[in-house]
């Protein structure tokens, strides 16, 4: 395969201003996220926690977007990676004495593990990534509906193992005493580090090739693009990112159990539904869509949680979110952003000519 194919690489040189214009599709969503987080910091502690939770979801959606948005292949299985990341983080950071009492049959190196938080987060990215690499072998060959069903099967299969392997994970009982270090700053730092990586990947030759397969599988194949390889790269990166979201969640909540990640009778959609809704409502094929969708639905969800508390009526949030997702699919199937990036609004001709993002979003004027 030719290694020279891409013309829309990030600009080298040029004035700082023009770099800003070029990077606007990254700077705009990142700036919006930082702005909202800083506003939340000035508010109450409750607001701060809500913003932290939003950032955890954003990391998940960024990971989901890295695969689904760039490849166009739907995945219902990403909550698997979140669970793997969360359990990895839990094993590495939970109180050693508690682990030894609640999980006496788990391997000793897990029971006695007690490593630095950043190391645990790194491990929580690596474990799901390795798992993703293994399952990619069969899964990345599938397209369309088959891929959707297979990723769902992966979610259920791992869900059964995690919830039934009593001696290792504690089964359906909560894994408690996890080190609680996820606060707003910590979450914001992770988002600010990951978002440029996601953007860089999508603008890299790997990302552009993958986007080519999304737009036309056969044409891109005839150009020599190895679909399975490109998808596998995105799949593994996205698993690592979603694994980090799992670590953040475990460190945010302090306790985890399988029902928080896997679909089941009690979860009623759960994190799988929430994150898919965020990505689809925002716009599945752009970074801006992932970020805007997360912020938009987080805002609505958190407002509704207050209504739930006031009326003592749970699950109103899920009802409203499902309705919003349905209306989006029917009325604006490409999402709020229309699947486009946010471009510098005052651009001159020269930046118009080379749209930096998705082939589908080329010719950005509506």
């Amino acid at each position, binding site marked *: 395969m030719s290694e020279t194919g891409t013309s829309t690489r990030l600009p080298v040189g040029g004035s700082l201003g023009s770099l800003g214009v070029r990077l606007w599709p990254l700077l705009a969503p990142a700036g919006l996220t930082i702005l909202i987080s800083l506003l939340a910091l000035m508010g109450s502690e409750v607001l701060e926690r809500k913003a932290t939770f939003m950032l955890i979801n954003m990391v998940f959606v960024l990971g989901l977007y890295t695969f689904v948005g760039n490849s166009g292949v739907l995945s219902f299985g990403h909550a698997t990676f979140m669970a793997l990341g969360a359990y990895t983080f839990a094993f590495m950071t939970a109180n050693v004495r508690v682990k030894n009492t609640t999980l006496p049959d788990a391997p000793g190196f897990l029971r006695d593990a007690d490593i630095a938080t950043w190391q645990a987060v790194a491990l929580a990215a690596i474990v799901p990534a390795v798992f993703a690499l293994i399952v990619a072998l069969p899964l990345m060959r599938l397209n*369309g509906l088959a891929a959707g069903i297979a990723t769902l099967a992966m979610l259920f299969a791992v869900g*059964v193992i995690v919830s*039934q392997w009593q001696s290792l994970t504690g089964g359906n009982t909560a894994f408690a005493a996890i080190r609680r270090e996820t606060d707003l700053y910590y979450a914001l730092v992770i988002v600010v580090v990951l978002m440029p990586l996601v953007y860089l990947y999508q603008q890299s030759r790997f990302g552009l090739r993958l986007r080519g397969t999304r737009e036309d599988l056969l044409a891109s194949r005839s150009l020599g693009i190895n679909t399975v390889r490109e998808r596998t790269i995105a799949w593994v990166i996205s698993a690592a990112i979603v694994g980090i979201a799992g670590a953040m969640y475990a460190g945010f909540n302090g306790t985890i159990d399988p029902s928080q990640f896997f*679909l089941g*009778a009690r979860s*009623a959609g759960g994190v799988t539904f929430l994150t*898919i809704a965020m990505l689809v409502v925002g716009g599945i094929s752009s970074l801006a869509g992932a970020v805007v969708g997360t912020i938009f639905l987080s805002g609505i969800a958190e407002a509704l949680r207050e209504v739930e508390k006031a009326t003592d009526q749970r699950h109103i949030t899920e009802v409203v979110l499902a309705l919003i997702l*349905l209306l989006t*699919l*029917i009325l604006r199937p490409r999402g709020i952003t229309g699947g486009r990036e946010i471009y510098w609004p005052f651009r001159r001709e020269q930046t118009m000519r080379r749209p930096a993002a998705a082939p589908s979003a080329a010719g950005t004027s509506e």
Partner: protein
Amino acid sequence: MDPSEVAQNAIDAAARGSFLALVALGVALLFGIMNLVNFAYGEVILAGGYAMLIFTTWFLDASVWPLLIIWTVVVAIVFALAQERLAFRPVRHADPTTMLVTSFAVSVLLVNIAIVVWSGLARPVEIGGVTLEQFTAGEIRIRKLDVITLGAAAFLLLSLTAFLKRTSLGIQMRAASEDFRMSQLLGVPANRVIATAFFIAGILAGSVALITVGNQGSSSPGMGLFPLIFGLVAVVLGGMTSLIGAVVGGFVLGGLIVGLEQGLATYGMERFRDAFVFLAVIVMLVFRPQGLVVGRAIRERV
């Protein structure tokens, strides 16, 4: 394994298989006509379950069972048709993935409405002792409910076959599932064919609801999820492209489940049964995506 044990396992497999075949048939019917994998099909079953709860608590008790059956099936049909009209018709021409997400949204919506109205806990449904009665012949036990399930499945399969082979509408439906666009060009009305598919799927879902509630004695928000997921598994195993495949897949899955239970029990691993079932799905999708029974070619040919 002695003969009576073999017979017992065969009966268990047949009972599960016929139940799964009913679910799978509903899933495959919608897939064949409009390329829709309908997650929300489980919530048609759910609607049937809560219809039974409403019937037995507000109207009459379950001793007037013919009325209960009719009521449950009618409610399921209404829900199936409403799903089609309100959610799936607007996205009919979208790609299969968009329809899949749509059905996921409908599913989550209905489950959560059920939780808001009836809480997340299972609600017992008073349907008399039919769930517990069983026949015994030597060492073999046959539950009355399993006999009912087998009978209902046989009846529904035969009626559906007769409908598809003998009636004009049935022939139009088969034509539409062969090639939807071509059949439209030849004068098959799309709306009527699709609505009929949802109507039949509603009848099947209502029957599944009756059997499920008969089995567990209660209605719960999660009651549609597992029939649906296993029905989907059965469809993938049997072949997504033919109705016969769905029925075959249902019975194969029934046999697989009973076999896995027996096999894994010797290692004390029967808790992990479902993990193996889902693994089988992935293996099937990769190595034989057309399923055990090959129907028409749906793959885009190049």
